[in-house]
């Protein structure tokens, strides 16, 4: 009788135990994976201190909302966000300022060279044009065996002096700029790309999409106080 009852109810017990184990382990994993939101200290916004002022900036200094992106030109999610961010800049106009900082990930083969290419373009005053072009053409150059040839072609498309561009890509100035951004990323606890801050508060990875960013900007504009502006 006992054996019969056990055989009858055992599958229910096993299935319930597995369901419970899955829920508990999933919840524990979720808690462990949810990283604490990063914050950039206010004083790092000062010129030269590695805040917004020392990155590549697009927009007015007195904008109500500042987006700082730590990005990698070979990162597909960064490329996916590039055009939506441009659109947000157009939509919000003078109320929005965008700052880009380099954080080329070591597992992306050509990311550092791409960062240097953008810095070489920057030395001829065309950083943002190269930034947009590198993201737009990411799928082409990221798998190319000879990426330098493509970057030189992009420089030509942007009307840059090619010889100077090639030399600048190797320059200490370009390398120092990229390394400075990487140092900033490390200081602020950045580990992945894109990592985006809105008014110094990190946007949760779950909100890294056009609608999520728009909501975060609206919240920042609505709050008017940077401390309570993002997720």
């Amino acid at each position, binding site marked *: 009788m006992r054996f019969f009852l056990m055989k009858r109810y055992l599958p229910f017990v*096993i299935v319930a135990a597995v369901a419970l184990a899955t829920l508990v382990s999933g919840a524990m994993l979720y808690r462990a994976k949810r990283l604490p939101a990063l914050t950039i200290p206010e004083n790092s916004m000062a010129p030269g201190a590695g805040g917004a002022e020392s990155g590549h900036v697009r927009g007015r200094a007195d904008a109500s909302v500042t987006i700082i992106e730590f990005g990698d030109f070979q*990162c*597909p999610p960064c490329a996916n966000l590039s055009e939506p961010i441009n659109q947000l800049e157009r939509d919000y106009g003078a109320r929005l300022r965008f700052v880009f900082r380099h954080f080329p990930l070591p597992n992306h083969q050509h990311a550092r060279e791409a960062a240097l290419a953008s810095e070489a373009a920057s030395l001829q005053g065309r950083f943002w044009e190269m930034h947009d072009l590198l993201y737009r053409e990411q799928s082409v150059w990221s798998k190319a065996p000879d990426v330098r040839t493509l970057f030189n072609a992009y420089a030509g498309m942007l009307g840059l002096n090619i010889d100077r561009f090639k030399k600048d890509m190797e320059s200490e100035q370009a390398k120092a700029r990229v390394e400075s951004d990487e140092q900033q990323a490390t200081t602020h606890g950045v580990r992945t790309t894109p990592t985006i801050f809105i008014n110094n508060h990190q946007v949760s990875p779950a909100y890294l999409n056009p609608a999520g960013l728009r909501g975060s900007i609206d919240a920042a504009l609505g709050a008017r106080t940077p401390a309570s502006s993002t997720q």
Partner: protein
Amino acid sequence: MNTSRFRIILYTLAAIISLAGLADATYLTVQGLTGETLVCGGSPDCFRVLGSSYARVAGIPVAAFGTLAYFGVFSFATFAAFGYARARAFLTLTVGTMFLATLWLLYVQAFVLHAFCRYCLFSAALVFGLSAIAVLVPSSR
């Protein structure tokens, strides 16, 4: 070995395989919910796949459906091993649906995204294993 015993062994094997799939799908679901699949930090190919629009249906990570499906397979296989006849039909139906979904996801990875995520390939291998079991299980009649 008699047919009944062979069947129990196959259902037990299906339950064990589905547990591995359950762990894999749960991990990917959590990654999707935390937003980890929307950033780069690990394998570029995985993030190309898991961060794509194909990785979500109505905002829900596809892996969440996989979690439910694997749990369904585990439950049906367990009940079938204990002799619940109706569970066998549900098991076949669930595995068949998962097989078709897996073919679609492999097509998307190979021909649309041109990138393969190892977690998805592991899941595909498990589904093929489950499908083989579903085919091998002797009929009760």
